[in-house]
């Protein structure tokens, strides 16, 4: 699962001409470590919903990559 999400984030980065991230870790903060601003988070949530049918922000709070994966896995 982490690889699928990593691929989506890297695709977003590539399209905007930014460097891809090499190593993803579940503890990584979306905003502070992956540098996703509100617009990128909005884009990520739409892309993930298209792919997995899950709205990761449905009930509020997602801060880290690990929390995203937990939502997608329905935990």
């Amino acid at each position: 699962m982490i690889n699928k999400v990593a691929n989506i984030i890297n695709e977003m980065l590539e399209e905007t001409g930014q460097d891809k991230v090499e190593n993803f870790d579940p503890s990584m903060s979306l905003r502070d470590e992956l540098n996703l601003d509100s617009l990128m988070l909005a884009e990520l949530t739409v892309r993930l919903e298209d792919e997995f049918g899950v709205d990761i922000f449905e009930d509020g709070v997602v801060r880290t990559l690990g929390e995203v994966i937990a939502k997608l896995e329905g935990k």
Partner: protein
Amino acid sequence: MNKIFLVYKQMEVTYENLINDINAKETYQHYIFVNDNNPYSIFLSIIHSLLYKYPIEILDGDFSDIELEEIGVNKTALSDSKSIERLLTINDFNVLLDKISENEDWSLSLYTSGTTGRPKKVTHTFQSLTRNVKTGDKFSDNIWAFAYNPTHIAGLQVFFQSLMNQNTIVYAFNDQLTNLSNLIEEYNITNISATSTYYRNVLPYLKDREYDSIKRITFGGEKYDPSIEDKLKTIFPNVKIRNIYASTEAGSLFVAKGEKFIVPHTIKGLVKINENNELLIHQSLLGKSNSFTFEGNWFNTGDLVEFIDNIHFKFISRNSDMINVGGYKVNPLEVENTLINVEGVIDLVVKSKKNKVTGEILVADVVKGDNYNDMELKKSIKQYGAKHLQEWKIPRIIKFVNEIPKSRTGKKVRK
């Protein structure tokens, strides 16, 4: 006078500093175009213009050359500056406020998304900008978290509300969003005014804590999101929540508790709905613009509403021609007219995609020419967008399609 006027990143500016800077400012410019939208430069210029009674035009600091050209602003005119002929010396904030209230010759123009696909200029008087500013002892100790772009109407509303009460503004926008918790504690912030998007994004950084100092939270700039109200009440146990309807065209008009808006008695008779349930506003409530079209004396907001009784109404949907990205209104036509110039793009339609982070984002369906690589073309479109459009006007997700569906009247279908 040692009271703080503005906290911006590491900088604290007192009212005394502000007055000294105003006294020292001997030149002025018609255009306020501040590269990083630095709120202090913008606020200082606005107050200076009110003191010396010259009209100003506020431009977003991230407008590209093309966007400036589109709205008819000559780039060389941006740096034109003139000297003040008779310098005033202000010694006291109340004197400054008195001078500001003599403002017949002053006006402030700003730009908003127009229906024709290019931004339109709207010119406000002091009265139309400060219609809903409240002053008095009750408001004198307010400390504001500032969470809007200072060049936009909602930011200006907070600025005037704060200035007229000699309050403190603490900038909590953009890169300061994740720092809101510290700012509330350090400055004892009492009021926050922001978009639903801002609250949704700041919530993860306020988790597990209670902040007693916050008395009032205002939603503005975007459709109100009732799903966050309970969460905010848990984090801010002393808070009252209000929802404001303001527009660049009219300034602030209505206030609501929850979703039920009230037409204040001061503007009763100046608001009505037409047979399509669209909200109409009388032209006397609007700023001035050459781009307004009126139905008689009425301006059609394009917002669909339902009246509950004579003075209460609810919004059913906001103007469907516009897409609201986290509080920024975008006309998809403007984006299409720009991106059609990218080599390899044959046709495109820009649409909205709903989400819980920014309300809506832009996505584009693109018909591409033969022999263009998908990823390379996506990169070119986004790169061209970044050069010619403000960030929130760039489609985030691009899909390639064989054709763009059109309605019977030939309009692109944006659904």
